[in-house]
């Protein structure tokens, strides 16, 4: 696991801390470990889109659980990134429907355009490319997700436009941009 985040002080913003308290309060006393997944999402969104060891240790301390209890969970779910990622994490679906409708070409094109392989990050720290399994949008295959946004019925042109737009915008995309954690 990657330590990273060693320089900066790891602490949620006041606003997030309030949210943390609310989330923990949803579970019975002594069962605060149940709040682990939402807290990890929150942490990933707040600390550069990935979970470093110090960030996971911080989450463990918030829940009074052992750090290793966080590591085992975080490493189990593919939605958690244990390595630094670019501002825009592009997650391309490669399951049946998308694959039949050209996911492979989309992936190859992205690799060429960004100059990276799946799993890598561009030098400017802008994009990370990742393949994922079915995101439940088979009817609009092929598709990819960036942050909380689905980009559907993809063509090579659409991908190019998307990349340009994202680059111009230059903003970090996270799941929490739209999916509010206190809602789920």
């Amino acid at each position, binding site marked *: *696991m990657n*330590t990273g985040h060693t320089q900066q002080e790891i602490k949620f913003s006041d606003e997030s801390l309030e949210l943390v308290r609310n989330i923990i309060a949803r579970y019975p006393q*002594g069962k605060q470990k149940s709040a682990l997944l939402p807290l990890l999402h929150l942490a990933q969104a707040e600390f550069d889109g990935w979970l470093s*060891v110090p960030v*996971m240790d911080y989450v463990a301390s918030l829940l009074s659980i*052992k*750090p*290793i*209890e966080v*590591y*085992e969970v975080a*490493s*189990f779910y593919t939605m958690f990134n244990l390595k630094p990622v670019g501002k825009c994490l592009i997650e391309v679906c490669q399951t049946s429907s998308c694959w039949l409708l050209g996911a492979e070409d989309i992936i190859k094109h992205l690799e060429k355009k960004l100059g990276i392989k799946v799993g890598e990050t561009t030098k400017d720290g802008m994009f990370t490319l990742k393949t994922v399994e079915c995101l439940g949008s088979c009817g609009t295959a092929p598709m990819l997700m960036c942050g909380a946004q689905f980009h559907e019925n993809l063509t090579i042109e659409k991908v190019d436009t998307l990349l340009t737009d994202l680059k111009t915008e230059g903003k970090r995309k996270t799941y929490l941009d739209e999916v509010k954690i206190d809602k789920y």
Partner: protein
Amino acid sequence: MTHVKEKDITARKTPDTANTLSGNAATDVKVAYIDNKAYEVKDGETILSFIRRHLGHDLVPTLCDAPNLEPFGSCRVCSVDVALTENGNVKTQASCHTPVMANSYIYPSSERIQKLRKNIIELVLTDHPLDCLTCEVNNNCELQTVAAKVGIRKVRYPEGKNHLDRKKDMSHPYMTSDFSKCINCFRCVRACDEVQGQFVLSMAGRGFESHIIKSSEVSFKESDCVSCGACAQACPTSAISDVFESKSVANVEKTRTVCTYCGVGCNLEVATIGGKIKSIQAPYDAEVNGGHTCLKGRYAFGFYNHQDRLKTPLVRKNGELVPATWNEAYDYIEKELKRIKSDFGPDYIAGISSARCTNEENYLMQKFIRAVIGTNNIDACARVCHSPTALGMQRTFGTGAATNSIIDLKYTDCIMVIGANPTDGHPVTGAKLKQFAMKDKPSIVIDPRRTELAKYATVHLQLRPGTNVALLNMMLYYIIKEGLEDKQFIESRTEGYEDFKNEILKLNIDEMERVTGVNRELVRKAAIIYASANNAMSFHGLGVTEHSQGTFTVMLIADLAMITGNIGRRGVGVNPLRGQNNVQGTADMGCQPHQGAGYLDVTNPEYHKKYEAFYHAKLPNYAGYKIPQMYDAALNGKLKALWLMGEDNVQTDPNTNHVRAALEQLDLLVVQEIFMTETAKMAHVVLPASSFLEKSGTFTNGERRIQRVNAVVKPIEGTKPDGQIVADIMNRMGYKQTDYDPKTLLEEISQIVPFFAGVKWDELGDNGKQWPVLPDGSDTEILHTETFKRGKGKFAYNDWRESEELVTNGREFPYILTTNRELEHYNAGTMTRRTGNNEILTEDVLMINPEDAKTHAIKNGEMVCVISARGKIDVKAKVTDEVLPGILSSTFHFPEIKMNDLTSSIADSEALCPEYKVVAVNIRKSKGKYKTGKTS
């Protein structure tokens, strides 16, 4: 073995433990069927334990199941078919974690099941290197055994993706891993969580990517591992092991013995090849440690054949210690002892025995001093640790030993740990206490330091060092105020309560709150938790005894147990965590100046006569010197000869300069040792002794359990067992003493020590016996079930008093220094520093609160100069909030730091146990002046 357990002493009011099997009329016997034959079912057992109980261990193979772990159910090798009717429709169930259902029909070896098992193992083997012949666990690998059992000849599947290229981890001095051999059974993870409670290991990733991680996926060395070895022992393959390859069975012989590093008394299974020790494991059937140890017991044996071992006697000639033969050494000693005895008298000679040595050796040592020399000047290192426990508990109960057993932790509802840091000092018991506290069961920790256990406790009373008496008095106050006394117990079993109660109620709580520094509400809370638990156990350590009010504190702990009726049944009692492996035995055997073997008062005319007749010798009828008095006597010319059996007093006793000066006055200092120590360097004669691995005898652990120590290897050439050395000298001095032999000596001991009456070497078995052992051989898990040894338990009130040290020096030296120990080392480190433990923990540190560090501009890791009224030392700072502002705590395993230059000669008022735990000091940033060069 006639190990008779107490039957009626069940814990109070806990329905699930009381009356388990009684009252089971024949009519409600439940049965289930194995291959259509009926067998009796026990409540709560799993299908696996049901089958194994009736048809033996081997019918159902298992992989992820382990004797000391909770059932888990991950490998499915233990699958069996279960039907609701005879030969009915079956469902496959993993037997290890499925409770057996009454009237079910179990088919453990149907054809279907056999096929299933075979296929599971075959799949496991597709991702396992097939190099058994060169694997360290060959012939002792559970995967190999199970594979053979289910009949796998070859794997049918073609080679696919696998993990065979995983790298080995050889970073750690002891622990190793090679995860190409891992079968993802989770046993190591569970061992680390359930047995040790360290949470170092886990499974990360998922599916094909699943893999064992250590902490945040680092090496063993960088992880939080405390090297207990539980995971290595639990791992069914060689995926996790140790540098000694302790699961290897190639050419090894095994000997069972007992660990020498602490009073827990773990059983060890030592493997030897050709007379050399190869490795150590923990037997699963050991009642004390059931498959667990700490790193000292399991891995720190390398000292035994270290090149530094003393191998020849040394005699001082022209001011220098030079090698001599045993005869020359004995001649010298004999001549000197005889001269001093006739010139000055026997009372000018004294002996100090050792809690590291066996009962038989301690018995011989005191017999030598009493019967052969003719003085009661015999003491032991228990003086500097648990003498107040023995004295205090004797005063209150009549017996100075733990009232209950460690197994009682299973039955108790509350633990109270006072002045003890068991996860470092008594690691295997510490792990059990930690497991208890971690499960959020009521636990109280009373300690100036936020110990590992304190972090899990329900209440941590972080008092100022030296105020135990004040704090416990407060607890008693609240118990009485809240009306939580056990009136019936007080009425029927105790005396002196009314006076005691009156004194307690007069307490000035404002003042007590101020001196202890603990909020009264917190004390009240703790008092209520302890007093209202059905069954509460207390544990205490040197943080209780090594104080000027040590004995009084012990008496208060005993009072707390009595006032709440927590005596005489399962899950209760007063349980001192005895420090050294045989500190209990040393006192039992009579290495005390006022009591002989079996605690009989040497000044009592009746006992005096009894001892004289037994030893066929003339004995003095007055008590001898305690250790501190020996030093004073030496300084006053009243002591001329001192015999030390395996103790390094110069480094370990307080106020080093005082001790040195005293030893310098002696005409004869004899030291039996395994290594050259600072004390041995001052001796006139040094006699090379054998270590515990090279001799037999018995040790008595902290729960009064007399266990057999069996020689694992022959004595290192040139050395003799301490007992043999003493026997030799006894003969030299004209007393007929047979050679050192535990069996004959135990026979002798059983005739003079009342509670050893039924102890026989051949009947001690693997797990020993807990004294008192009655003449018929039955032993005792719990003391004081009906009455106390002294009849009624005695309440006695004592005021809290500020330590003399703080009264005198507190103004000039405003900080309080206390001492603590670390898991990795044993006392002065003579042994552990000659093992791999030295690579794990390399130096002593001084804990200092961030606030104080800031005041003195001391940064973490910088050297601090610590000054007391007696000396100055330099030690490395560890800035931590484990200690409160104004309090410092230091380890003392590296004597070159010279911690005892600081400590005082102040001692417990009653037992003269030194006050190591309260020293008035001042600190400043070091100028590097007192830095002592590392010796090794």
